[in-house]
Protein backbone atom coordinates (compact mmCIF):
# COMPACT_ATOMS: atom_id res chain seq x y z
CA UNK A 1 0.00 0.00 0.00
CA UNK A 2 2.93 2.27 0.76
CA UNK A 3 4.19 2.05 -2.80
CA UNK A 4 0.86 3.42 -3.96
CA UNK A 5 1.62 6.88 -2.61
CA UNK A 6 4.91 6.94 -4.46
CA UNK A 7 3.17 5.99 -7.71
CA UNK A 8 2.80 9.09 -9.87
CA UNK A 9 -0.23 7.66 -11.62
CA UNK A 10 -2.05 7.31 -8.31
CA UNK A 11 -0.98 10.80 -7.24
CA UNK A 12 -2.29 12.31 -10.47
CA UNK A 13 -5.55 10.36 -10.27
CA UNK A 14 -6.23 11.27 -6.65
CA UNK A 15 -5.30 14.93 -7.27
CA UNK A 16 -7.61 15.33 -10.27
CA UNK A 17 -10.50 13.57 -8.58
CA UNK A 18 -9.98 15.60 -5.40
CA UNK A 19 -9.93 18.91 -7.30
CA UNK A 20 -13.02 18.07 -9.35
CA UNK A 21 -14.92 16.78 -6.32
CA UNK A 22 -13.82 19.79 -4.31
CA UNK A 23 -14.99 22.23 -7.00
CA UNK A 24 -18.28 20.36 -7.31
CA UNK A 25 -18.93 20.40 -3.55
CA UNK A 26 -17.89 24.03 -3.19
CA UNK A 27 -19.91 25.00 -6.29
CA UNK A 28 -21.25 28.40 -5.15
CA UNK A 29 -17.86 29.43 -3.75
CA UNK A 30 -15.81 28.85 -6.90
CA UNK A 31 -18.36 29.97 -9.49
CA UNK A 32 -21.21 32.43 -10.01
CA UNK A 33 -23.43 29.91 -8.21
CA UNK A 34 -26.29 29.99 -10.69
CA UNK A 35 -25.78 27.60 -13.62
CA UNK A 36 -29.13 28.23 -15.26
CA UNK A 37 -29.52 31.98 -14.84
CA UNK A 38 -29.85 34.01 -18.05
CA UNK A 39 -29.21 37.76 -18.09
CA UNK A 40 -29.40 39.94 -21.17
CA UNK A 41 -29.13 37.05 -23.64
CA UNK A 42 -28.24 39.14 -26.70
CA UNK A 43 -25.49 41.07 -24.92
CA UNK A 44 -23.95 38.16 -23.02
CA UNK A 45 -24.21 35.19 -25.37
CA UNK A 46 -21.17 33.54 -27.01
CA UNK A 47 -18.61 35.56 -25.04
CA UNK A 48 -15.21 33.93 -25.54
CA UNK A 49 -13.22 32.67 -22.52
CA UNK A 50 -11.51 35.15 -20.17
CA UNK A 51 -13.89 37.99 -20.95
CA UNK A 52 -15.72 40.35 -18.61
CA UNK A 53 -19.23 41.23 -19.75
CA UNK A 54 -20.95 44.66 -19.62
CA UNK A 55 -22.30 44.06 -16.10
CA UNK A 56 -18.80 43.33 -14.80
CA UNK A 57 -19.02 39.56 -14.28
CA UNK A 58 -15.99 37.62 -15.40
CA UNK A 59 -16.39 34.48 -17.54
CA UNK A 60 -13.24 32.29 -17.33
CA UNK A 61 -14.60 29.84 -19.92
CA UNK A 62 -16.91 32.19 -21.81
CA UNK A 63 -20.68 31.92 -22.15
CA UNK A 64 -23.06 29.73 -24.15
CA UNK A 65 -25.87 30.71 -26.48
CA UNK A 66 -28.12 31.84 -23.63
CA UNK A 67 -25.35 33.89 -22.03
CA UNK A 68 -24.91 31.35 -19.23
CA UNK A 69 -21.45 31.11 -17.70
CA UNK A 70 -19.74 27.93 -19.01
CA UNK A 71 -17.43 27.60 -15.97
CA UNK A 72 -20.39 27.70 -13.57
CA UNK A 73 -22.23 25.12 -15.65
CA UNK A 74 -19.11 22.97 -15.75
CA UNK A 75 -18.84 23.02 -11.93
CA UNK A 76 -22.53 22.22 -11.45
CA UNK A 77 -22.32 19.65 -14.24
CA UNK A 78 -19.54 17.97 -12.27
CA UNK A 79 -22.00 17.55 -9.37
CA UNK A 80 -24.43 15.72 -11.64
CA UNK A 81 -21.83 13.69 -13.55
CA UNK A 82 -19.90 12.61 -10.44
CA UNK A 83 -23.01 11.76 -8.43
CA UNK A 84 -24.52 9.75 -11.24
CA UNK A 85 -21.18 8.01 -11.87
CA UNK A 86 -20.51 7.15 -8.23
CA UNK A 87 -24.04 5.91 -7.51
CA UNK A 88 -24.13 3.87 -10.71
CA UNK A 89 -20.80 2.24 -9.83
CA UNK A 90 -22.01 1.51 -6.27
CA UNK A 91 -25.15 -0.13 -7.65
CA UNK A 92 -23.14 -2.23 -10.09
CA UNK A 93 -20.74 -3.21 -7.28
CA UNK A 94 -23.58 -4.38 -5.05
CA UNK A 95 -25.20 -6.42 -7.82
CA UNK A 96 -21.85 -7.76 -9.00
CA UNK A 97 -20.65 -8.77 -5.53
CA UNK A 98 -23.94 -10.51 -4.71
CA UNK A 99 -24.11 -12.38 -8.03
CA UNK A 100 -20.40 -13.22 -8.03
CA UNK A 101 -20.37 -14.21 -4.36
CA UNK A 102 -23.38 -16.48 -4.62
CA UNK A 103 -22.14 -18.01 -7.88
CA UNK A 104 -18.75 -18.63 -6.35
CA UNK A 105 -19.96 -20.25 -3.14
CA UNK A 106 -23.01 -22.27 -4.20
CA UNK A 107 -21.95 -24.84 -6.78
CA UNK A 108 -24.45 -26.58 -9.02
CA UNK A 109 -27.42 -25.13 -10.86
CA UNK A 110 -27.28 -21.77 -9.04
CA UNK A 111 -23.72 -21.17 -10.19
CA UNK A 112 -24.44 -22.30 -13.74
CA UNK A 113 -27.52 -20.09 -13.98
CA UNK A 114 -25.80 -16.99 -12.56
CA UNK A 115 -22.72 -17.41 -14.74
CA UNK A 116 -24.88 -17.90 -17.82
CA UNK A 117 -26.79 -14.73 -16.93
CA UNK A 118 -23.50 -12.84 -16.52
CA UNK A 119 -22.16 -13.98 -19.87
CA UNK A 120 -25.49 -13.20 -21.47
CA UNK A 121 -25.65 -9.60 -20.25
CA UNK A 122 -21.96 -9.20 -21.10
CA UNK A 123 -22.70 -10.08 -24.73
CA UNK A 124 -25.30 -7.35 -25.11
CA UNK A 125 -24.23 -4.10 -26.75
CA UNK A 126 -24.43 -1.81 -23.72
CA UNK A 127 -25.51 1.38 -25.45
CA UNK A 128 -28.39 -0.42 -27.16
CA UNK A 129 -29.58 -1.71 -23.79
CA UNK A 130 -29.12 1.72 -22.24
CA UNK A 131 -31.10 3.34 -25.06
CA UNK A 132 -33.94 0.91 -24.48
CA UNK A 133 -33.84 1.30 -20.69
CA UNK A 134 -33.68 5.07 -21.03
CA UNK A 135 -36.69 4.95 -23.34
CA UNK A 136 -38.67 3.07 -20.68
CA UNK A 137 -39.55 6.17 -18.71
CA UNK A 138 -39.16 9.92 -18.75
CA UNK A 139 -35.40 10.62 -18.88
CA UNK A 140 -33.96 11.48 -15.46
CA UNK A 141 -30.79 11.13 -13.41
CA UNK A 142 -32.29 8.29 -11.34
CA UNK A 143 -33.12 6.34 -14.47
CA UNK A 144 -29.59 6.83 -15.80
CA UNK A 145 -28.12 5.55 -12.51
CA UNK A 146 -30.35 2.48 -12.57
CA UNK A 147 -29.64 1.79 -16.24
CA UNK A 148 -25.86 2.17 -15.83
CA UNK A 149 -25.79 0.11 -12.64
CA UNK A 150 -27.85 -2.71 -14.11
CA UNK A 151 -25.68 -2.96 -17.24
CA UNK A 152 -22.30 -2.58 -15.53
CA UNK A 153 -22.09 -5.32 -12.87
CA UNK A 154 -20.88 -8.22 -15.01
CA UNK A 155 -17.13 -7.73 -14.82
CA UNK A 156 -17.39 -7.32 -11.03
CA UNK A 157 -19.43 -10.52 -10.79
CA UNK A 158 -16.81 -12.43 -12.79
CA UNK A 159 -13.95 -11.13 -10.66
CA UNK A 160 -15.71 -11.85 -7.36
CA UNK A 161 -16.78 -15.28 -8.57
CA UNK A 162 -13.21 -16.27 -9.39
CA UNK A 163 -11.88 -14.87 -6.14
CA UNK A 164 -14.58 -16.53 -4.00
CA UNK A 165 -14.02 -19.89 -5.64
CA UNK A 166 -10.32 -19.85 -4.90
CA UNK A 167 -10.92 -18.64 -1.33
CA UNK A 168 -13.59 -21.28 -0.67
CA UNK A 169 -10.92 -23.99 -0.95
CA UNK A 170 -8.65 -22.38 1.66
CA UNK A 171 -8.24 -23.97 5.12
CA UNK A 172 -9.61 -20.98 7.04
CA UNK A 173 -12.90 -21.27 5.16
CA UNK A 174 -13.07 -25.00 5.78
CA UNK A 175 -12.40 -24.19 9.42
CA UNK A 176 -15.25 -21.70 9.56
CA UNK A 177 -17.61 -24.22 7.94
CA UNK A 178 -16.42 -26.93 10.37
CA UNK A 179 -17.26 -24.62 13.28
CA UNK A 180 -20.86 -24.91 12.18
CA UNK A 181 -21.36 -21.37 10.86
CA UNK A 182 -24.12 -20.97 8.30
CA UNK A 183 -22.96 -20.76 4.71
CA UNK A 184 -24.37 -17.28 4.37
CA UNK A 185 -22.35 -16.13 7.37
CA UNK A 186 -19.18 -17.76 6.08
CA UNK A 187 -19.63 -16.01 2.75
CA UNK A 188 -20.42 -12.61 4.22
CA UNK A 189 -17.93 -12.55 7.10
CA UNK A 190 -15.03 -14.69 5.98
CA UNK A 191 -14.91 -14.85 2.22
CA UNK A 192 -16.22 -11.60 0.78
CA UNK A 193 -13.98 -9.26 2.82
CA UNK A 194 -10.99 -11.14 1.37
CA UNK A 195 -12.40 -11.16 -2.14
CA UNK A 196 -12.95 -7.44 -2.46
CA UNK A 197 -9.47 -6.23 -3.42
CA UNK A 198 -9.89 -6.70 -7.19
CA UNK A 199 -13.28 -5.00 -6.86
CA UNK A 200 -11.57 -1.75 -5.83
CA UNK A 201 -9.64 -1.68 -9.10
CA UNK A 202 -12.79 -2.44 -11.03
CA UNK A 203 -14.62 0.38 -9.23
CA UNK A 204 -11.98 2.94 -10.20
CA UNK A 205 -12.12 1.89 -13.86
CA UNK A 206 -15.92 1.60 -13.73
CA UNK A 207 -16.29 5.17 -12.48
CA UNK A 208 -14.62 6.60 -15.57
CA UNK A 209 -16.72 4.35 -17.75
CA UNK A 210 -19.98 5.30 -16.01
CA UNK A 211 -19.26 9.04 -16.29
CA UNK A 212 -18.55 8.64 -20.02
CA UNK A 213 -21.75 6.65 -20.57
CA UNK A 214 -23.83 9.18 -18.61
CA UNK A 215 -22.43 11.86 -20.90
CA UNK A 216 -23.21 9.70 -23.95
CA UNK A 217 -26.83 9.23 -22.89
CA UNK A 218 -27.26 12.90 -22.07
CA UNK A 219 -25.67 13.73 -25.42
CA UNK A 220 -28.27 11.59 -27.20
CA UNK A 221 -30.98 13.39 -25.21
CA UNK A 222 -32.10 10.42 -23.11
CA UNK A 223 -30.09 11.22 -19.98
CA UNK A 224 -30.03 14.24 -17.68
CA UNK A 225 -32.34 16.88 -19.14
CA UNK A 226 -31.58 20.56 -19.68
CA UNK A 227 -31.54 23.12 -18.14
CA UNK A 228 -29.84 21.01 -15.41
CA UNK A 229 -26.25 20.97 -16.62
CA UNK A 230 -24.44 17.66 -17.10
CA UNK A 231 -21.23 17.35 -19.08
CA UNK A 232 -23.04 15.30 -21.72
CA UNK A 233 -25.88 17.71 -22.37
CA UNK A 234 -23.44 20.63 -22.31
CA UNK A 235 -21.49 18.97 -25.13
CA UNK A 236 -24.77 18.33 -26.95
CA UNK A 237 -25.80 21.98 -26.69
CA UNK A 238 -22.34 23.11 -27.79
CA UNK A 239 -22.62 20.92 -30.87
CA UNK A 240 -24.77 23.46 -32.72
CA UNK A 241 -22.39 26.31 -31.93
CA UNK A 242 -19.09 24.61 -32.81
CA UNK A 243 -18.35 27.23 -35.45
CA UNK A 244 -18.85 30.44 -33.47
CA UNK A 245 -18.39 29.20 -29.88
CA UNK A 246 -16.23 26.04 -29.81
CA UNK A 247 -15.48 26.47 -26.08
CA UNK A 248 -19.02 25.49 -25.11
CA UNK A 249 -18.47 21.90 -26.31
CA UNK A 250 -14.70 21.78 -25.73
CA UNK A 251 -14.66 22.62 -22.00
CA UNK A 252 -16.92 19.83 -20.69
CA UNK A 253 -15.19 17.33 -23.00
CA UNK A 254 -11.75 18.20 -21.62
CA UNK A 255 -13.09 17.91 -18.06
CA UNK A 256 -14.56 14.52 -18.94
CA UNK A 257 -11.30 13.25 -20.44
CA UNK A 258 -9.31 14.46 -17.41
CA UNK A 259 -11.59 12.67 -14.97
CA UNK A 260 -11.63 9.44 -17.01
CA UNK A 261 -7.84 9.49 -17.37
CA UNK A 262 -7.56 10.05 -13.60
CA UNK A 263 -9.85 7.09 -12.88
CA UNK A 264 -7.95 4.83 -15.29
CA UNK A 265 -4.51 5.75 -13.94
CA UNK A 266 -5.70 5.34 -10.37
CA UNK A 267 -7.15 1.94 -11.28
CA UNK A 268 -3.90 0.86 -12.94
CA UNK A 269 -1.85 2.01 -9.95
CA UNK A 270 -4.18 0.20 -7.52
CA UNK A 271 -3.94 -2.94 -9.59
CA UNK A 272 -0.16 -2.94 -9.50
CA UNK A 273 -0.11 -2.08 -5.79
CA UNK A 274 -2.54 -4.87 -4.93
CA UNK A 275 -0.83 -7.49 -7.07
CA UNK A 276 1.81 -9.12 -4.84
CA UNK A 277 3.64 -10.70 -7.78
CA UNK A 278 4.13 -7.39 -9.54
CA UNK A 279 7.48 -5.64 -9.33
CA UNK A 280 8.24 -2.46 -11.15
Amino acid at each position, binding site marked *: MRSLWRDRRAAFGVAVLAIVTGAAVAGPLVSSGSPTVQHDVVATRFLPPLVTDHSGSFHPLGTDRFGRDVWTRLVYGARVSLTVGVLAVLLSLVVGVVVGGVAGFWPGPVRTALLALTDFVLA*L*PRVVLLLLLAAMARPSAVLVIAALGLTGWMSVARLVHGEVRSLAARPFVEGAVALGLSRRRVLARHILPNALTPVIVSAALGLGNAITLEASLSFLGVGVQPPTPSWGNM*IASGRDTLVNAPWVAAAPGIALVLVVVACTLLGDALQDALDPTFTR
Partner: protein
Amino acid sequence: MLAHLGTRTLVGAVVVAGVVTLTFLLVRLAPGDPVERLLGPTATPAQLAAQRRALGLDRPLAAQYAIWLARFVRGDWGRSIATGRPVRELLGDAVPATVALVGTSLILSYLLGLAVGAWQSGAGPRVDATLSVTTVTLFALPGFWLGLMLAMAFTYWAHWLPAFGATGLDANALTGWSRLADRLRHFALPLATLTLIGIGGAARFVRGAMRDVRSQAFVRTAEAKGLSPFRVTRRHVARNALIPVITLIGLSLPALFSGAVLVEAVFAWPGVGRRLVEAVQARDYPVVMAATVVTAVLVVAGNLLTDLGVAWIDPRIRRGKGET
Protein backbone atom coordinates in the same frame (compact mmCIF):
# COMPACT_ATOMS: atom_id res chain seq x y z
CA MET B 1 -12.70 -28.35 -32.15
CA LEU B 2 -15.88 -28.95 -34.15
CA ALA B 3 -17.79 -29.90 -31.01
CA HIS B 4 -16.46 -26.77 -29.33
CA LEU B 5 -17.59 -24.67 -32.28
CA GLY B 6 -20.99 -26.33 -32.20
CA THR B 7 -21.46 -25.50 -28.51
CA ARG B 8 -20.39 -21.91 -29.09
CA THR B 9 -22.82 -21.53 -32.00
CA LEU B 10 -25.62 -22.88 -29.82
CA VAL B 11 -24.75 -20.49 -26.99
CA GLY B 12 -24.62 -17.68 -29.53
CA ALA B 13 -28.08 -18.55 -30.79
CA VAL B 14 -29.40 -18.54 -27.21
CA VAL B 15 -27.87 -15.10 -26.63
CA VAL B 16 -29.48 -13.73 -29.80
CA ALA B 17 -32.86 -15.22 -28.81
CA GLY B 18 -32.54 -13.70 -25.34
CA VAL B 19 -31.60 -10.27 -26.64
CA VAL B 20 -34.51 -10.33 -29.05
CA THR B 21 -37.06 -11.34 -26.41
CA LEU B 22 -35.74 -8.80 -23.92
CA THR B 23 -35.83 -6.03 -26.51
CA PHE B 24 -39.35 -6.95 -27.54
CA LEU B 25 -40.55 -6.65 -23.95
CA LEU B 26 -38.59 -3.47 -23.20
CA VAL B 27 -39.76 -1.47 -26.21
CA ARG B 28 -43.38 -2.44 -25.73
CA LEU B 29 -43.30 -1.72 -22.00
CA ALA B 30 -41.81 1.69 -22.68
CA PRO B 31 -44.30 4.53 -22.57
CA GLY B 32 -45.00 6.22 -25.88
CA ASP B 33 -47.11 4.97 -28.69
CA PRO B 34 -46.00 4.81 -32.32
CA VAL B 35 -49.59 5.15 -33.50
CA GLU B 36 -50.11 8.44 -31.68
CA ARG B 37 -46.90 9.74 -33.22
CA LEU B 38 -47.95 8.54 -36.65
CA LEU B 39 -51.46 10.02 -36.64
CA GLY B 40 -50.60 13.18 -34.75
CA PRO B 41 -52.50 15.07 -32.02
CA THR B 42 -55.66 15.59 -34.05
CA ALA B 43 -56.51 11.88 -34.33
CA THR B 44 -59.74 10.71 -32.70
CA PRO B 45 -59.72 7.70 -30.33
CA ALA B 46 -61.58 5.70 -33.01
CA GLN B 47 -58.89 6.43 -35.57
CA LEU B 48 -56.17 5.47 -33.11
CA ALA B 49 -57.93 2.19 -32.31
CA ALA B 50 -58.41 1.39 -36.00
CA GLN B 51 -54.75 2.05 -36.79
CA ARG B 52 -53.67 -0.06 -33.80
CA ARG B 53 -55.83 -2.92 -35.00
CA ALA B 54 -54.40 -2.57 -38.51
CA LEU B 55 -50.85 -2.88 -37.11
CA GLY B 56 -51.83 -5.73 -34.80
CA LEU B 57 -50.90 -3.71 -31.71
CA ASP B 58 -54.25 -4.40 -29.98
CA ARG B 59 -53.46 -8.07 -29.37
CA PRO B 60 -51.93 -9.54 -26.23
CA LEU B 61 -48.15 -9.18 -25.95
CA ALA B 62 -47.49 -12.92 -26.24
CA ALA B 63 -49.54 -13.15 -29.43
CA GLN B 64 -47.78 -10.12 -30.90
CA TYR B 65 -44.44 -11.72 -30.09
CA ALA B 66 -45.37 -15.05 -31.68
CA ILE B 67 -46.68 -13.37 -34.83
CA TRP B 68 -43.63 -11.13 -35.11
CA LEU B 69 -41.23 -14.02 -34.60
CA ALA B 70 -42.98 -16.28 -37.12
CA ARG B 71 -42.91 -13.54 -39.75
CA PHE B 72 -39.35 -12.53 -38.95
CA VAL B 73 -37.84 -15.98 -39.43
CA ARG B 74 -39.70 -16.29 -42.74
CA GLY B 75 -38.00 -13.10 -43.86
CA ASP B 76 -40.99 -10.78 -43.50
CA TRP B 77 -39.52 -8.01 -41.35
CA GLY B 78 -42.52 -5.71 -41.76
CA ARG B 79 -42.63 -2.03 -42.56
CA SER B 80 -41.36 0.89 -40.53
CA ILE B 81 -44.32 2.44 -38.69
CA ALA B 82 -42.78 5.91 -38.87
CA THR B 83 -41.74 6.00 -42.53
CA GLY B 84 -43.68 3.18 -44.17
CA ARG B 85 -40.54 1.83 -45.84
CA PRO B 86 -39.87 -1.93 -45.67
CA VAL B 87 -37.55 -2.66 -42.73
CA ARG B 88 -35.32 -4.94 -44.79
CA GLU B 89 -34.71 -2.15 -47.25
CA LEU B 90 -33.95 0.31 -44.42
CA LEU B 91 -31.43 -2.03 -42.81
CA GLY B 92 -30.12 -3.37 -46.11
CA ASP B 93 -28.61 0.09 -46.66
CA ALA B 94 -27.49 0.44 -43.05
CA VAL B 95 -25.72 -2.86 -42.35
CA PRO B 96 -22.94 -2.48 -44.96
CA ALA B 97 -22.28 1.07 -43.74
CA THR B 98 -21.87 -0.06 -40.13
CA VAL B 99 -19.85 -3.17 -40.99
CA ALA B 100 -17.51 -1.10 -43.14
CA LEU B 101 -17.03 1.45 -40.38
CA VAL B 102 -16.68 -0.97 -37.45
CA GLY B 103 -14.67 -3.58 -39.39
CA THR B 104 -12.14 -1.15 -40.86
CA SER B 105 -11.65 0.63 -37.56
CA LEU B 106 -11.26 -2.71 -35.74
CA ILE B 107 -8.52 -3.87 -38.13
CA LEU B 108 -6.73 -0.52 -38.16
CA SER B 109 -6.86 0.02 -34.41
CA TYR B 110 -5.54 -3.46 -33.61
CA LEU B 111 -2.74 -3.29 -36.20
CA LEU B 112 -1.64 0.11 -34.92
CA GLY B 113 -2.33 -0.83 -31.29
CA LEU B 114 -0.19 -3.98 -31.67
CA ALA B 115 2.64 -1.92 -33.10
CA VAL B 116 2.48 0.67 -30.32
CA GLY B 117 2.05 -1.93 -27.56
CA ALA B 118 4.92 -4.06 -28.85
CA TRP B 119 7.15 -1.00 -29.13
CA GLN B 120 6.25 0.00 -25.56
CA SER B 121 6.84 -3.41 -24.04
CA GLY B 122 10.44 -3.41 -25.25
CA ALA B 123 11.17 0.31 -24.88
CA GLY B 124 12.90 2.21 -22.09
CA PRO B 125 10.96 3.70 -19.17
CA ARG B 126 10.74 7.21 -20.63
CA VAL B 127 9.30 6.16 -23.99
CA ASP B 128 7.04 3.72 -22.19
CA ALA B 129 5.68 6.41 -19.86
CA THR B 130 5.06 8.88 -22.70
CA LEU B 131 3.26 6.29 -24.79
CA SER B 132 1.27 5.14 -21.74
CA VAL B 133 -0.01 8.66 -21.10
CA THR B 134 -0.92 8.96 -24.79
CA THR B 135 -2.79 5.66 -24.96
CA VAL B 136 -4.64 6.27 -21.67
CA THR B 137 -5.79 9.64 -22.97
CA LEU B 138 -6.89 8.20 -26.32
CA PHE B 139 -8.76 5.44 -24.52
CA ALA B 140 -10.50 7.98 -22.26
CA LEU B 141 -11.83 10.11 -25.13
CA PRO B 142 -15.62 9.88 -25.45
CA GLY B 143 -16.29 9.02 -29.09
CA PHE B 144 -19.00 11.58 -29.62
CA TRP B 145 -16.85 14.40 -28.24
CA LEU B 146 -13.74 13.40 -30.19
CA GLY B 147 -15.94 13.26 -33.28
CA LEU B 148 -17.19 16.79 -32.67
CA MET B 149 -13.67 18.09 -32.08
CA LEU B 150 -12.35 16.42 -35.25
CA ALA B 151 -15.28 17.86 -37.18
CA MET B 152 -14.52 21.28 -35.75
CA ALA B 153 -10.86 21.09 -36.75
CA PHE B 154 -11.08 19.39 -40.13
CA THR B 155 -14.48 20.56 -41.35
CA TYR B 156 -15.18 24.00 -39.91
CA TRP B 157 -11.64 25.37 -39.55
CA ALA B 158 -9.59 23.64 -42.22
CA HIS B 159 -12.43 22.90 -44.67
CA TRP B 160 -10.70 19.65 -45.60
CA LEU B 161 -13.14 16.89 -44.87
CA PRO B 162 -16.92 16.57 -44.77
CA ALA B 163 -18.59 15.66 -41.47
CA PHE B 164 -22.07 14.69 -42.56
CA GLY B 165 -23.33 11.44 -44.09
CA ALA B 166 -21.60 8.85 -46.26
CA THR B 167 -21.73 10.68 -49.59
CA GLY B 168 -21.90 14.22 -50.86
CA LEU B 169 -25.06 15.77 -52.32
CA ASP B 170 -23.67 15.33 -55.84
CA ALA B 171 -22.70 11.67 -55.24
CA ASN B 172 -24.99 10.34 -57.96
CA ALA B 173 -23.46 12.62 -60.56
CA LEU B 174 -19.91 11.48 -59.78
CA THR B 175 -18.21 8.61 -61.55
CA GLY B 176 -14.98 6.62 -61.23
CA TRP B 177 -12.23 8.12 -59.13
CA SER B 178 -14.11 11.20 -57.98
CA ARG B 179 -16.91 8.98 -56.71
CA LEU B 180 -14.43 6.88 -54.74
CA ALA B 181 -12.71 10.00 -53.42
CA ASP B 182 -16.05 11.39 -52.26
CA ARG B 183 -16.78 8.15 -50.38
CA LEU B 184 -13.34 8.04 -48.78
CA ARG B 185 -13.48 11.67 -47.70
CA HIS B 186 -16.79 11.06 -45.94
CA PHE B 187 -15.38 7.88 -44.40
CA ALA B 188 -12.29 9.60 -42.98
CA LEU B 189 -13.61 11.39 -39.88
CA PRO B 190 -15.92 8.67 -38.46
CA LEU B 191 -13.17 6.11 -39.07
CA ALA B 192 -10.50 8.29 -37.45
CA THR B 193 -12.70 8.85 -34.40
CA LEU B 194 -13.35 5.16 -33.75
CA THR B 195 -9.80 4.12 -34.63
CA LEU B 196 -8.02 6.65 -32.39
CA ILE B 197 -9.99 5.44 -29.37
CA GLY B 198 -9.48 1.83 -30.43
CA ILE B 199 -5.69 2.24 -30.67
CA GLY B 200 -5.66 3.44 -27.06
CA GLY B 201 -7.48 0.38 -25.77
CA ALA B 202 -5.59 -2.11 -27.92
CA ALA B 203 -2.13 -0.71 -27.17
CA ARG B 204 -2.77 -0.69 -23.42
CA PHE B 205 -3.82 -4.31 -23.50
CA VAL B 206 -1.04 -5.48 -25.84
CA ARG B 207 1.58 -3.82 -23.64
CA GLY B 208 0.28 -5.67 -20.57
CA ALA B 209 0.03 -9.02 -22.37
CA MET B 210 3.53 -8.72 -23.84
CA ARG B 211 5.03 -7.71 -20.48
CA ASP B 212 3.45 -10.79 -18.90
CA VAL B 213 4.90 -13.08 -21.57
CA ARG B 214 8.31 -11.36 -21.52
CA SER B 215 8.76 -12.12 -17.82
CA GLN B 216 8.39 -15.88 -18.39
CA ALA B 217 11.21 -18.39 -18.33
CA PHE B 218 10.97 -19.52 -21.96
CA VAL B 219 11.70 -15.99 -23.15
CA ARG B 220 14.86 -15.91 -21.06
CA THR B 221 15.78 -19.27 -22.59
CA ALA B 222 15.23 -17.92 -26.09
CA GLU B 223 17.41 -14.91 -25.29
CA ALA B 224 20.04 -17.17 -23.75
CA LYS B 225 20.11 -19.21 -26.95
CA GLY B 226 21.41 -16.08 -28.60
CA LEU B 227 18.38 -15.24 -30.72
CA SER B 228 18.13 -11.66 -31.94
CA PRO B 229 15.76 -9.42 -29.90
CA PHE B 230 13.52 -9.00 -32.95
CA ARG B 231 13.23 -12.76 -33.39
CA VAL B 232 12.48 -13.26 -29.69
CA THR B 233 9.74 -10.63 -29.86
CA ARG B 234 8.20 -11.95 -33.04
CA ARG B 235 8.43 -15.70 -32.59
CA HIS B 236 8.24 -16.13 -28.84
CA VAL B 237 6.60 -13.11 -27.23
CA ALA B 238 4.16 -11.83 -29.84
CA ARG B 239 2.74 -15.24 -30.69
CA ASN B 240 1.88 -15.98 -27.06
CA ALA B 241 0.70 -12.46 -26.30
CA LEU B 242 -1.65 -12.61 -29.30
CA ILE B 243 -3.92 -15.19 -27.66
CA PRO B 244 -5.42 -12.85 -25.02
CA VAL B 245 -5.38 -10.02 -27.56
CA ILE B 246 -7.53 -11.94 -30.04
CA THR B 247 -9.92 -12.90 -27.25
CA LEU B 248 -10.13 -9.21 -26.38
CA ILE B 249 -11.09 -8.33 -29.96
CA GLY B 250 -14.14 -10.54 -29.56
CA LEU B 251 -14.99 -9.14 -26.14
CA SER B 252 -14.63 -5.57 -27.37
CA LEU B 253 -17.13 -6.03 -30.21
CA PRO B 254 -20.21 -5.05 -28.18
CA ALA B 255 -18.38 -1.94 -26.94
CA LEU B 256 -17.29 -1.12 -30.47
CA PHE B 257 -20.85 -1.35 -31.76
CA SER B 258 -21.97 0.79 -28.84
CA GLY B 259 -19.31 3.35 -29.69
CA ALA B 260 -20.36 3.23 -33.32
CA VAL B 261 -23.93 4.14 -32.33
CA LEU B 262 -22.72 7.48 -30.95
CA VAL B 263 -20.19 8.17 -33.68
CA GLU B 264 -22.85 7.44 -36.31
CA ALA B 265 -25.14 9.91 -34.52
CA VAL B 266 -22.45 12.61 -34.61
CA PHE B 267 -21.52 12.20 -38.27
CA ALA B 268 -24.99 11.25 -39.54
CA TRP B 269 -23.35 8.04 -40.81
CA PRO B 270 -26.22 6.01 -42.28
CA GLY B 271 -25.58 2.86 -40.24
CA VAL B 272 -27.51 0.50 -37.99
CA GLY B 273 -26.73 2.56 -34.89
CA ARG B 274 -28.27 5.72 -36.26
CA ARG B 275 -31.37 3.85 -37.43
CA LEU B 276 -31.65 2.29 -33.99
CA VAL B 277 -31.43 5.62 -32.14
CA GLU B 278 -34.07 7.14 -34.42
CA ALA B 279 -36.31 4.08 -34.14
CA VAL B 280 -36.13 3.92 -30.33
CA GLN B 281 -37.07 7.58 -30.11
CA ALA B 282 -40.01 7.11 -32.49
CA ARG B 283 -41.04 3.78 -30.86
CA ASP B 284 -40.82 2.32 -34.35
CA TYR B 285 -41.17 -1.29 -33.10
CA PRO B 286 -40.38 -3.23 -36.31
CA VAL B 287 -37.21 -1.23 -36.96
CA VAL B 288 -36.01 -1.46 -33.33
CA MET B 289 -36.49 -5.22 -33.34
CA ALA B 290 -34.77 -5.83 -36.66
CA ALA B 291 -31.87 -3.50 -35.84
CA THR B 292 -31.38 -5.25 -32.49
CA VAL B 293 -31.41 -8.69 -34.10
CA VAL B 294 -28.87 -7.56 -36.69
CA THR B 295 -26.58 -6.03 -34.05
CA ALA B 296 -26.81 -9.10 -31.81
CA VAL B 297 -26.07 -11.47 -34.70
CA LEU B 298 -23.09 -9.35 -35.80
CA VAL B 299 -21.69 -9.35 -32.24
CA VAL B 300 -22.20 -13.10 -31.75
CA ALA B 301 -20.76 -13.91 -35.18
CA GLY B 302 -17.76 -11.73 -34.38
CA ASN B 303 -17.21 -13.64 -31.16
CA LEU B 304 -17.33 -16.95 -33.02
CA LEU B 305 -14.77 -15.70 -35.53
CA THR B 306 -12.58 -14.68 -32.60
CA ASP B 307 -12.79 -18.19 -31.18
CA LEU B 308 -11.66 -19.56 -34.53
CA GLY B 309 -8.84 -17.03 -34.59
CA VAL B 310 -7.62 -18.12 -31.17
CA ALA B 311 -7.72 -21.76 -32.23
CA TRP B 312 -5.80 -20.94 -35.38
CA ILE B 313 -3.03 -19.16 -33.51
CA ASP B 314 -2.81 -21.56 -30.55
CA PRO B 315 -1.94 -25.14 -31.57
CA ARG B 316 -2.94 -26.46 -28.10
CA ILE B 317 -6.54 -25.47 -28.76
CA ARG B 318 -6.42 -26.34 -32.46
CA ARG B 319 -5.59 -29.95 -31.68
CA GLY B 320 -8.28 -30.10 -29.03
CA LYS B 321 -5.88 -30.66 -26.16
CA GLY B 322 -6.23 -27.35 -24.42
CA GLU B 323 -9.25 -26.05 -22.65
CA THR B 324 -11.14 -22.86 -23.23
